[in-house]
Each structure stands twice: as structure tokens, then as C-alpha cells.
């Protein structure tokens, strides 16, 4: 428990630092939101109106220090301000259009990719030099190296366009009312198959390879030989002895990946017209939408930190030695 709290303290400090960076970094970009907005209006806007717009964005209000203080105050009260790219919609509302969809799509895809990939890695390493070991890792690495955009487009054309098995776009049909109804959930699931499948295909190779390599080094250790010598069942040796220890580095990567779930998956969102955070992030950066950027980064940072804290806890459970070293 003390360990968990100590880690928590560390993460709170890290959160504070990242909140400050979050404020500073967007402002170091060249240009400013008003010019970006002016560009969007193709110069159809009078300079006076531009000036007024700048003022309403709060860009002219005082020094950087004063802006930082009001930013801190707003973050603490949960008020993320109004988006500039989607002016005058509040940032929370803009993020709300994509948050849940990203969470479900990228989250589920990551879980599937991690679980399946790790399991395959364990099996492949266990049956080293078997047919699976010689075929699977190179094949999956090949698929992973395939440009994701092409992979997604190809899947879309084949299974969506040509065969018509899955919808071509969106997270649900436009004539289905969202809600916790069987019709909607089924519809949404059908829409998620292609994007989720492409993400899994593109990322699974990494998990398989990572786990396989960890497994192989663990399998060479003395305590595995000892376990085998004791006459334990192969399944027990594989899972409880080898896999549990080999899992540690993968768990770290998983924690990182989990945190980045919320940054969305831009390309799958584009190809499958799926709502999500990736698109918003790009949009925010391109329009120099400071409030939206800050809101998105804040959510991403906090979730990365939260995920890492959880991973620390899992780590401590998997490998009790970490607790004493702190």
C-alpha cells in the first residue's frame, strides 16, 4: 500500500510538470490561431474582425504568465475553454464527439492485439523451431510493416466495397438511434470489425516478437530447467513459470500503449470515417487550436500517467521484488 501511494505521489508531480509543458509547447509553434483562422476564411475577413476574434480567443489578454495562471485555474476547475477550430463549441463538447469511440475502438483493438499476440508469442517460443515459429513471426512482421493506410484501404475495398460484408464508414448507421439497445450495439459492433481488425493485424506482430524473445531468454534460465526436472506439467511450466516472468517487459509496453489509446488512431479514423481523437488532434494542431490541443494533451497525459501507475501495481504483483526497491 505504501508503495502504491509513493508511486502515486510521483505521478502527481509528473502530472503537474506535464500540465505546464502542455501550456507552453503549443505556444512555441510558429504562427498563431488567428492567422490559421484567417487562412481558413481565405482572406474574406476584415482585419478589424480578425483583431476582435483574437481578443475573443483570449490571445491578447496579458502576458504569458497571466495566461498561464488563468489556464491553471481553468484546468483545476475542469473548464477547458472554447475550441478555436470549432469555435464557439466548448472543448469538452468537441472531445466528447470522439472520446468514447476512440476508447472502445482503440482500446478493444489494443487488448485483442496484446492478448492474442502475447499468447501466440508464448506458444511460438515454447515450440521453438516448429512450423509456427518459422511462419508466424515473419508473416506478422511483414503485415505490420505494410503501410497501414494501404492495409486499411485494401480491407475496406475488399470486405466493405467489393464483398459488402461490412459497412464502408462510420461507427454506426445513420438511421440507428444510439443507445443501449441490442440493435444499436450490434450495428456498432459490425461497424467496428474492419477498423479494429486492421489495427490488430498491424500491431500484433510486435507483441508476438517481443513475447517470443522474452520467453526464449527466460526458457534458458536454471529455474525453468529445475521446474521441468521437478516433473511439472508442460502447461504449468510454460504459463506459471516462464510466461509470468517473460511478461514483465511486455506489461511495460502495454502500459505505454494503453496510455496512448486516447490519442486515437488517425489513419483508421480517416479510412473508415470513424469518429475519434486522432482526427481531432491533427485538426487542433493544424488550426493552432491551443485550447483543444491542451484539452487533448491533458487527457492523453493523464491517461498515460494513470496507465503507468496501474502498470506499476501490476508489476509489483507479478514481481514482488520491485516493491522493496521502490
Amino acid at each position, binding site marked *: 500500500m505504501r508503495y502504491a501511494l509513493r508511486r502515486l505521489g510521483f505521478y502527481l508531480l509528473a502530472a503537474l510538470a506535464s500540465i505546464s509543458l502542455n501550456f507552453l509547447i503549443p505556444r512555441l509553434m510558429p504562427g498563431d490561431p488567428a492567422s490559421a483562422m484567417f487562412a481558413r476564411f481565405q482572406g474574406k475577413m476584415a482585419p478589424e474582425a*480578425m483583431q476582435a476574434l483574437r481578443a475573443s480567443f483570449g490571445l491578447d489578454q496579458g502576458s504569458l504568465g497571466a495566461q498561464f495562471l488563468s489556464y491553471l485555474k481553468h484546468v483545476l476547475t475542469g473548464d477547458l475553454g472554447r475550441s478555436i477550430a470549432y469555435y464557439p463549441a466548448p472543448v469538452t463538447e468537441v472531445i466528447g464527439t470522439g472520446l468514447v469511440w476512440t476508447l472502445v475502438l482503440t482500446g478493444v483493438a489494443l487488448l485483442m492485439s496484446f492478448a492474442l499476440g502475447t499468447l501466440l508469442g508464448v506458444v511460438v517460443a515454447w515450440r521453438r523451431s516448429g512450423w509456427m515459429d518459422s511462419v508466424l513471426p515473419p508473416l506478422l512482421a511483414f503485415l505490420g510493416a505494410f503501410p497501414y493506410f494501404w492495409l486499411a484501404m485494401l480491407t475496406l475495398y475488399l470486405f466493405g466495397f467489393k464483398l459488402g460484408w461490412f459497412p464502408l464508414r*462510420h461507427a454506426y448507421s445513420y438511421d440507428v438511434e444510439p443507445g443501449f439497445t441490442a440493435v444499436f450495439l450490434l450495428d456498432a459492433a459490425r461497424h467496428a470489425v474492419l477498423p479494429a481488425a486492421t489495427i490488430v493485424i498491424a500491431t500484433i506482430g510486435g507483441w508476438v516478437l517481443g513475447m517470443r524473445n522474452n520467453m526464449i531468454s527466460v526458457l534458458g534460465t536454471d529455474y525453468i530447467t529445475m521446474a521441468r526436472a521437478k516433473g511439472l506439467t508442460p502447461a504449468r511450466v510454460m504459463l506459471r513459470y516462464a510466461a509470468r516472468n517473460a511478461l514483465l517487459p511486455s506489461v511495460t509496453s502495454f502500459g505505454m500503449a494503453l496510455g496512448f489509446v486516447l490519442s486515437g488512431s*488517425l489513419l483508421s479514423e480517416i479510412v473508415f470515417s470513424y469518429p475519434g481523437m486522432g482526427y481531432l488532434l491533427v485538426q487542433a494542431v493544424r488550426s493552432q487550436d491551443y485550447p483543444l490541443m491542451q484539452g487533448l494533451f491533458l487527457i492523453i497525459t493523464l491517461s498515460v500517467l494513470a496507465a503507468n501507475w496501474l502498470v506499476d501495481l501490476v508489476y509489483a504483483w507479478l514481481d514482488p521484488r520491485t516493491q522493496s526497491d521502490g
Partner: protein
Amino acid sequence: MSLDHPRARAASLPATLSRGARAGLFVFGCALLGCNADRPAPAPGVLSISVQQTSAWVKNFNPLLPEGSARWPTRSGIYEPMMIFNGVTARWVPWLSLGATWSPGLQIVRFELRPGVTWSDGAPFTSADVVFTFDLLKRYRVFDGNDVWGFLDDVRAVDEHTVQVRFSRVFVPGFESVAQQPIVPKHIWADIADPMTFINPTPVGTGPFTEVRVFRNQVYELGRNPHYWQPGKPALSTLRFLAFPSNDQANLALIEGEVDWAGNFVPAIDRTFVERNPADNHYWFPLLGSTVFLYANTAHAPFGAADVRKAMSMAIDRQKLVEVAMYGYTRPADATGLSDAFASWRDPESADRDWMRYDVAAANALLDKGGYARGEGGIRKSPAGLPLRFDIHVVSGWSDWVRAGQVIARNLAEIGVDARLRLYDMSAWIDHLQRGNFDLAIAWSGEGSTPYRFYRWTMSTDTVAPLGTLAPSNWHRFGDPPTDELLHAFERTDDLEEQHRLMRGVEKRFADLAPAIPLFPSPMWGAYSTRRVDGFPSAKTPYAKLTPNAGTESLLVLVELRPKEK
């Protein structure tokens, strides 16, 4: 592909992808796999429109915010102006007003409002609404994007159906901003505490489509205004807007029949779209957009010299440029710089000049004459001894302009000018242009109902800002006092004949001076399918602009569309 208009739409695409490659893939995919179009047809009377691109809709029906920030129907279906300028027929169409009359001194204009118009909640539309709207523009400068209060004195109601607009000086070109201002209802907006942050979730307007029926992140639908003032119109029951994050997705939906009317760029449209169903699938890409220019910063040497600009212009193979960069959807510009939006203003005498003809030998001769001798590697040097080596600023990801820049760079090499393409993100690019922090750049030009704004933008001293200061137009910093005189005279007359005479003078100045290098007029993208809806404008029946990217002008189309009779 980002050839749509406004250019802004291009910003919605990730720069990380090569759009050319994606277009290629798109065409290739259709050819290889065959695009089937057998999907269940939506209910009759529904028009599915693809115009704004985003991955998720965010609610905003505030018509006073800068154009493009609110959802499309806000200015094209919900709120209406007093008059609409039809860019195809080049005529003013009376809308919420029956017409406008100038006072003899051209300082007062009276709008006679249309009687019997009601808001969608049933309340009558009166002159108080117009006065109130202009009052909001005065109170909130953000709303006054055209700066009407820079030339207006006051707007007052003479009686319930007459509005009198008094100008602070004689400024005839200001009429278009006043007449086309979307009008909001006083009885609703007077109670809004902060109109600037008002997203107007349940709009009350005078337009044909006002009822927001569905609003979700991927789709929203508008139903018709129960009180619309045009009897029997609109004939359609519903406008539907699906969210598409990029052109590829929108094009797929268009080809597949999910979208009836689209304003996005479609590559190889004859093959990918029309041939699928020649009876119903059509497009019309008139060159009514703004002219795209290669701007040379005249405040930087050696671009202050007209001969250098002209030589560079002669070195550009525009025919090849429009084929390579624009898929042949447009043609080379002429020496007036005017796009077809100003076709009736174009003076043939000024349009045809040597410096717009592709002639490398003549270009080289011109530079030789100017003392720009060839130096190391064949690169010319200015008389001061500096090599002619420049960057062309282009927005990264706007693949049509990037390709144009590549063609230009190759062309300029042939006359000993070493030009390199520099790609910037849009906000950095516009910042460089506005501050005059560039040598060469590809960019758009001014639009309007007359060429006034276009020429003011390209060659009036009134719009020249010092280097380093943000300039909303005239990025190349070119001013010509004789042009100013002509434009100032133009501001003071409403006589069409006189306006044309003055504009011919301006055109001649442009053709003589070559203040900037015109490349090609932009097409306005518009494609439609008559499978379910009929009545679209086309090259055969050009009653208005087909493109839905026409702002207020799209109202002219929306009221004409009707469900197809079977």
C-alpha cells in the same frame, strides 16, 4: 485531394498522406474491384449533401460568426440575406427584400422588404430584424467580417418594411456586403446574453430548411421550414449531412449513391463517377473560383522590376501546369488575371499579352536585357551580383499546388532562376505571406461580385502594408497610384457602363505592369446524381452555381431542387 473550395477544406486532411497516391489508389480500387452501387435507397425527398469535411459534427448554427465556422445550412438554408448575388448570371436576386434603390448622391440605399415573410416560429419578419442584425455587427466586431461599419453611418427602419442604410462616404462596392448579410430574428437574439459564443442549437430563421431533426456526431438532418415564404417550396423534405473526414470517403459515398450532391474534388470524374451511371451522374466545374497566382514579393529584389516578373511568367508552361497540377480541369489564366467569375468584365485587349505566353527564348532575352547575366551553374545573377535563388512557399499537403510548384520550379530553371519548393503548414504559410516574409508563393486571390476587390487586393496602394506587418491581402506588396485613382472612381459610381470603363483601365494597368503572375482560374467543384433528386443547375441550365461551396448563393439551388418523379 484538396482541390475543393474554399481551400480551407484542405486543412482537414492529414498532411502525412500523399493525396496524389490516395487519389490514385481510389481510382485504381474502383477500376480493379468494380464499384457497386446497390444500396438501399433513402426515403424520397431526402437530399444527402457532402460539403463540409470533418470526422464528427459539432453543433453550431450561428450565422454571424465568420463564414465557415458554422454548419453549412446556417448560411445556405436557415438564414437568408436581403439580396443574393448570382455569380453565374452576374445579377442581384431580390430575396428578403424586393429590391434596393440608391439615393441620388449614392450615400443612402433603401431596401424594400418583402411583405408576408415569417420566421420559422411564425413571427413576422420586419425591418426591426434587419436593424437589429446590423446593430449586432456594430456591437460585436467579430461578426463584422466584411467591416461594413467601416463605411456605414447608420441603419434604420423607415417603416415596418423599409430599411434605410446610410453610408459614411460614397462607397458603392460596400453594397454587396450589406445586401448579403444574413439576417437574424430580433425576438430571439435580443435575449441571448453572449451572441459570440452562442451555438444556436434550435435555429429560428426565414430560410427553406430550419428544423434540426437529428444531430449526432456522424449525421445531422434538417427538415423544412413550415412557414417558408416561397409558396410550395422547398419541395424536398430533408437535408442530410453525413460526416466524412476526407475527400476519399466523400467520393466513395458519392459514387456508391449515398450522397446526392457533393462539393468535393473528384479525381478522373468521368471514369470514376459519370460512367457508372451516365443517365443520373453529372458534374459541372465552371471556372468561377478565384485565380491562383504565383506571387513574387515586389518588396524584395529583384521582383520590383516588372521585366523580371514578366520573364518568369513567360517561362511558365501553363498548359502543362494545368494538366499536371489540375488534371486538365482548368485552363491557363490570361493577362487580366480575372477568372470566369468576372467574364463580363474581361477586356480582350488586355487579356492577350506576350508575358502570358510560354516563350522561354523571349524570357531569357528579357533577363539578358535587364543585366541578369548567367553565372555559376547557369544561374543568373542580379546586377548587384546576387544569384537568383528563391523559395516558393506552398502549403504542404495541398497536392495540386505542390504539383504546380514543381512544374514552375522546373520551368524557372530554364531561364536561370533557381527556385525551390518549400512546404509549410497552413498557418505558418499564411503568416509568412501576410508579413511579406517570402520571395515566391502560390496562393489564391480576391473574390466578389465585381473585380473591385480582386484588383484592390493585387495592385492598390491602399492594401500595401510594410514588411513585417500583417496584411490581409496584397501579400506581394504592390501598389500603383494610377490604379488607386481608377478604383476610387469606381467606388463612387453605380453606372454599369462607367464601372466597365474604369475597370478596363484597371485591367490595362494590370496587363502592363504584371503585379503578380496569374496561373489559372480555380474550378468550383460540384457533382450530383439525379437518382432521387432533380433540378440541379448544370452547364446546360446554368441558373446558379452548382457547387454547394457557394455560401448564400446555394439558397438559389436549394429552393429549386425537388424529388425526382418516377
